[in-house]
């Protein structure tokens, strides 16, 4: 389909607050985003992409993303499952990533969609931190949100969160994810070396994981904010823009 016909649902509730940036990112690339408040949400029928923005949905009281996730689950869970099954794209950035994890859509093994087997836990520093992070694209281009970014490219993307440490229910899951190519971004230093510790890894995430996708590659979440680095070009010519270009390009080809 043509880019201008790609409808992106940018879902919001009280406390989401990066929706404008995500909206702008799609708009700048010629797609057709719209804001949908959860209270007015009817169905995903006319959308090809669902974006869950960052922020503090419902204040992040209880746990980051938890309230937003359970409200989505209780309202239109079946709709979402179909959306994923049909190959449409779902992206969650920062708080949106937390929501997708709380929904059990990430790590998202195809046989157990909806099972919560990960958590974005409190940063090791126990506080909110705003800092520019460097990410290495380690995915084998399975993820529909990074297919335009070559493997091993390094990008500077800002982070700003208090709960970004990805914990998994058990170690076997990590191996499975790695085998499936579900690890998309890792924190690294300017030379691309991962495993440099804090502050390069701002939250203490084991294995330096910054972003992952589901087994199919069409659900993606990352803690750093590519929409804030849309125009911030790195030496390799890439910027946060590549995330949005990738998914637009995928939808255009596939549907």
């Amino acid at each position: 389909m043509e880019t201008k016909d790609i409808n992106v649902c940018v879902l919001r509730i009280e406390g989401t607050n990066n929706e404008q940036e995500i909206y702008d990112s799609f708009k700048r690339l010629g797609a057709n985003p719209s804001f949908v408040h959860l209270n007015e949400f009817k169905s995903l029928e006319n959308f090809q992409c669902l974006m869950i923005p960052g922020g503090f949905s419902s204040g992040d009281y209880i746990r980051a993303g938890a309230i937003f996730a359970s409200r989505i689950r209780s309202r239109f869970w079946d709709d979402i499952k179909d959306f994923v099954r049909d190959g449409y794209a779902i992206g969650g950035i920062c708080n949106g990533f937390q929501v997708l994890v709380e929904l059990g859509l990430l790590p998202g093994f195809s046989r157990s969609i909806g099972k919560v087997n990960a958590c974005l836990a409190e940063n090791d520093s126990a506080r909110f931190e705003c800092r520019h992070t460097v990410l290495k694209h380690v995915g084998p281009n399975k993820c529909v949100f990074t297919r335009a970014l070559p493997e091993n490219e390094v990008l500077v993307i800002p982070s700003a969160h208090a709960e970004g440490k990805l914990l998994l229910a058990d170690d076997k899951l990590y191996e499975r994810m790695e085998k499936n190519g579900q690890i998309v971004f890792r924190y690294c230093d300017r030379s691309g070396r991962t495993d440099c510790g804090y502050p390069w890894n701002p939250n203490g995430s084991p294995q330096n994981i910054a972003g992952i996708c589901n087994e199919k590659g069409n659900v993606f979440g990352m803690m750093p904010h590519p929409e804030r680095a849309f125009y911030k070009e790195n030496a390799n010519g890439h910027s946060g823009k590549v995330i949005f270009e990738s998914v637009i390009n995928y939808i255009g080809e596939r549907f």
Partner: protein
Amino acid sequence: MPDIFEIDLNVSEERLKGISEETGTGLSLDELKVIRDYFVKEGRNPKDIELQALGQAWSEHCCYKSSKYYLKRYLFNFDAPQNLFVIKEDAGLVEFDKDHAYAVALESHNHPSAIEPYGGAATGIGGILRDVVCMGAQPIALVDPIFFAPPTTSSELIPKGVKHPKYIFSGVVDGIRDYGNRVGIPTVSGMTAFHKGYLGNCLVNVGCVGIVKKKDIVYSRVGNVGDIYVLAGGGTGRDGIHGVTFASKELDDDSQVSSRSAVQVGDPIMKEPLIHACLEANEKKLLTGLKDLGGGGLSCVVGEMALAGGYGAKVTLENVHLKEKDLLPWEIWVSESQERMMMSVREKDLNKVLKIFRKWDVPAVVIGKVIQEKRLLIEWHGETIFDMDLEFLTEGPMYKRPFKKVSTRNENVEFGEPEDYNGTLLSLLKDYNCACDDWVVRQYDFEVRARTFSPPLVGMENCETHADASIIKPLEDSERGLALTSDVNPHFMVLDPFWGAASAVDEAVRNLVAVGARPHSFADCLNFGNPEKPEKMWEFVQAVQGLAHVISKIGATFVSGNVSLYNEGPAGACPPTPTIMGIGLIDDVNKSVTTPFKGNGNLIYIIGNTKDELGGSAYLRYRGIAGGIVPRVNPYELSNASFSLIELMGKGMVISCHDISEGGICCTLAEMCIGNEIGAAITLKGKLRPDKELFSESNTRWICEIDPNDRAEFEDGLRAHQVAFTILGATGGDRLRMAKDGKMLVDIEVKSMKEAWQRPLWDIMG
């Protein structure tokens, strides 16, 4: 006890004083007599709710009774062509471009923060956002200048009833963080200063800037007779009762307990959709007026909006939605519960407005309507419990309070030259006032909204140094930006309130110019002690004159501000602190300049003159020497140099720039080296003794990095405006070296400076 009762004012003076105390209204004897006379003319006694409303309206906080005479006389009679609507409303409006204006507001939340740092600071953010939203503007940036006693203050020095500065400091930062981040408005600028005078009187000032299409500007006044008052947002509760009267007196050791009701609690998750809903209703042209509920709650907002429109109001008080049952009518009327906005709406648009608020899950109720006569009437279950002349109610008294000069040690002092310059530099870099603020800054989301073109920390990732001002690019399709800074040096202020205040403006201008922005508007938050004490009043009047001295010559004026008096506690008064927020305009953000050195072999210039002005400097404080001359300001020089530098920056001729402030040339160079780990070698050429030249904090100075190929053009540009400059040396290597008269004074690795500068707050605050 009945809901409402009458208060007999025809009693002895003794009794009148008692009434003021028992009702907690804070009205003085003279004020009560004026009120008595009014009610004698009305032929009755006031009801409790009427007296309470007067207490709110006539408080220092609401009517500026001690300050307005001097503000009008010295500060408000300047104008600038870019000013659209200034001083009169909750936020000042200044032209951004042909179609847009920006709104500026700055306020204090000192007393609440001293009592309950987390809630106090958080609600400060909430309040300042409302001030901007009520102009119809979308908030785009928050600014938070904060002032504490040193975190190392020993527990024995802390008076009863006062919390340790570390507790206050971390609570305040937590509060700003949790509120600002949750509502999704970036906190991009601020300052963090420490002085022992803030023990028991922390200062928490908060500023906000918003952007609005000119056609969407809305004012805090009702439109027409018959318009409906709609109250939107959180329920009204007992929190924040008597906040303004509490802010208008000194704190004492049981303020902790007695002022509990003044404590407010913020709810950012009510605020965030409230902002959306108000702006949406306004953009659809459904509102005739919009105002926030701040100090004084309903009692201030209803009357002020009506009077500003030239009308009166009639309120049905039981319609106000409550957080808790059993509030008395007067409590509902004066409660300062957070997250509430008042709108006036034409009757035919009412349902459309209510529908928007329903969509956003924000309660909104009709509480009254606009009437022709300039009176305020309140009904409570059918009974009229309030009926007063609006002009009498809102006017408030004005005082020309006496003042008396305080003797300070503002004169030259003698001291010897240090042996160890490396050690001195490292100690200054570790001084909490000079050290890196990133422990604070990183807790705030300074990039949410993705409009922060230049953040408060600049340089390579995880190596960042201080920026002079942050730059916001508010519009999607325009490269124009706003630069933001906030400044004041309390150490100067204590020694010399006139030149200290003048220096604050100079510093704000310098910081804006350093990023390439031209000073465009200012806001001031004047934090002082008890105005009934002539010495404190003197500090205030001096400072106001010092501000005027500079502001009159730089083509931009104060467009809004706030006065906070009675900042006194068991340990004394706070240092006089006129916080200045500076807003600069930059036509093309891509031409902005940052502080870190960018390359090797570039020339390093100092712009401006270094004088023997070390009073209040970080260096003399480190040496333990009191007194000294506080830096002066020549507004003409400031304006020339600024103009010239901005012009050169516009031509792309300045690679990096940092203004010289705390720690003098020495610390400024260190910060420029740290950001990209690039060293420098310089030779001092001035006539002063080396330590004075390195550490003087003279105003109107910058360090610039220039490509050697641009040398001639750069220098010609400065000469054309008679701006003083000297080449100090060149960038390069991984050390900072400074020499004078053939003697190496400082020779130190950039990495060691970084370590010394970066750690202090993390080490003490955890």
